[in-house]
């Protein structure tokens, strides 16, 4: 960086943010502070954080509406389930395979998506989600159909068995921080800029030499791969998976998490996922009324804050000091 530019302050993504620091510390000591039931809940929140952030790559970065995201979640879970069923493949070997296999599915879904635009993308992805669920339900030789798969052994790492809720919590937490780190980097990289350019104006982006088709496919591949990681982790924790957990409802909830938090906003989506998972749990005692409450709350939020709780992404990678300010 040349020094004769007085308006340049500094170029950095990572600034010490007291909020971020507080969240990291709190998340690290959380299992000591709370009853086991809440650690379980927190694990599920972390799973949904991964899912929502992976969808955030597809919707928030590349601007492609995906209504079938739970399918990638399911593919990841079933990759592990099936590999366990037939080969007793241990978790840590299955985890990368789940990611790769879900990523391949993302690539395959991306191909037809390239041929359509806007609202039609929603229909294509919706159909894809349903197809995956039907396959899981009906290819009984492989998936055992609606009965689901169960009995996966707990993960082992050099003789250490991850058995308790706390172990799983830390494993998920580690993955979440890795993914968040990766996403922040991605958002401020050459690739992230190109994705956002595509989202904002495809034609302009193309005339600047950005290969639209390739990058859209990449967004689907990466987003799907991360959802596959969440699936594998969930399958291992619950030791049971069935097609019912990967339907349209899950896809919509994940989408809502992204929208409620703020499309494209990485911390916002974490918040959105947490709120949309925790609030219905807290309202459990109201049984039938809880989803009505949640639904009403979401409608009110969308009326008064349509851009999500933390709003659209705030891009602030390059800090430049203006001579006028």
């Amino acid at each position, binding site marked *: 960086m040349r020094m004769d530019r007085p308006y340049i302050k500094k170029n950095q993504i990572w600034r010490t943010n007291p909020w971020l620091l507080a969240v990291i510390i709190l998340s690290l000591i959380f299992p000591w502070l709370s009853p086991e039931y809440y650690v379980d809940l927190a694990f599920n929140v972390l799973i949904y954080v991964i899912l929502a952030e992976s969808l955030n790559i597809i919707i928030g970065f590349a601007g492609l509406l995906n209504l079938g995201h739970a399918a990638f979640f399911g593919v990841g879970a079933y990759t592990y389930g099936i590999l366990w069923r037939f080969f007793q493949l241990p978790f840590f070997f299955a985890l990368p395979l789940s990611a790769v296999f879900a990523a391949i599915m993302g690539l395959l879904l991306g191909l037809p998506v390239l041929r359509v635009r806007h609202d039609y993308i929603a229909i294509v992805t919706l159909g894809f989600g349903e197809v995956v669920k039907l396959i899981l339900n009906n290819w009984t030789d492989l998936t055992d159909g609606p009965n689901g798969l169960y009995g996966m052994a707990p993960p082992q790492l050099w003789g250490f068995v991850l058995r308790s809720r706390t172990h799983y919590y830390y494993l998920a937490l580690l993955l979440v921080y890795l993914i968040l780190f990766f996403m922040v980097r991605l958002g401020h*990289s050459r690739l992230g800029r190109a994705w956002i350019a595509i989202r904002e104006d495809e034609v302009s982006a193309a005339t600047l030499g*950005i290969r639209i088709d390739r990058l859209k496919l990449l967004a689907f591949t990466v987003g799907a791969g991360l959802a596959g990681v969440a699936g594998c982790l969930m399958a291992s924790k619950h030791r049971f998976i069935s097609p019912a957990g990967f339907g349209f409802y899950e896809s919509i909830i994940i989408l809502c998490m992204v929208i409620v938090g703020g499309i494209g906003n990485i911390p916002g989506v974490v918040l959105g996922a947490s709120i949309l998972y925790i609030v219905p749990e807290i309202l459990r005692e109201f049984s039938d009324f809880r989803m009505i409450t949640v639904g009403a709350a979401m409608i009110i939020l969308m009326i008064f804050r349509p851009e999500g709780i933390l709003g659209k992404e705030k891009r602030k990678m390059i800090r430049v000091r*203006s001579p006028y300010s």
Partner: protein
Amino acid sequence: MPGRYLKSKNISKVFGGVQALQNVSFEVFQGEILGLIGPNGAGKTTLFNCLTGIYAPTRGEIILEDSRRNLVGLKPAEVAKLGIARTFQNSRVFSGMTTLENVMVGCHLWSHAGLGGALFAGKRVEKEEEEIIENSLELLEFLELAPLANTLASALPYGFQRRLEIARAMATHPQLLLLDEPPCGMNPHESRAIMEVIRRIRDREITVLIIEHDMKVIMGISDRVICLDHGEKICEGPPQVVQKDPKVIDAYLGREEDALRTE
């Protein structure tokens, strides 16, 4: 005579029943400012879209002199890679990004970092990123936008957005820059300033093809001028000659029989 950069042969473009371009042939020479004039609806922007791969011409070819490549059938990104960049008639900046980031997107073409680069940013990726910023800031300075580097592009006044688009296009390091009515929406003062900028772009050895329908503006800046009317090239030559050509005057002022017909 400088070398030829590009030659288009008999480009035609038909939209349904509308003949937007009809056998348009022309040449672009290296280092010149070539003006493209014509009344509204003459096919100027359509010609730009054909040159940049946004439309595929119905017939004809566009040959790059150096590589003998035919641009017809290439995608916009491929055309950009061959050294042709453009701006649009209406501002099309990336409104959610800062001014600087807009230009950084333009650097996409000649930089390399991919997924791996984003994951494990090594020395090479960091250096590339710095080079991108350096390059972008230099272009912002060139277009006198540097003090606004951190402003959201959507918050820029319209005239500055037009400048930003030029900076973004120049960030691809083009050999040929297509400008679609750069002074459109600018006041006379800004308009004069942008013409000065275009001269300085040419001084950087970038060939410029510029659309403008204000005769006064284009005549002062162009080395040569092509005039289109109803999708056909009606005149080509030095500004003084084109300006006096009766066909051009007709196209701009309307033919007598046209005037009679509307009465």
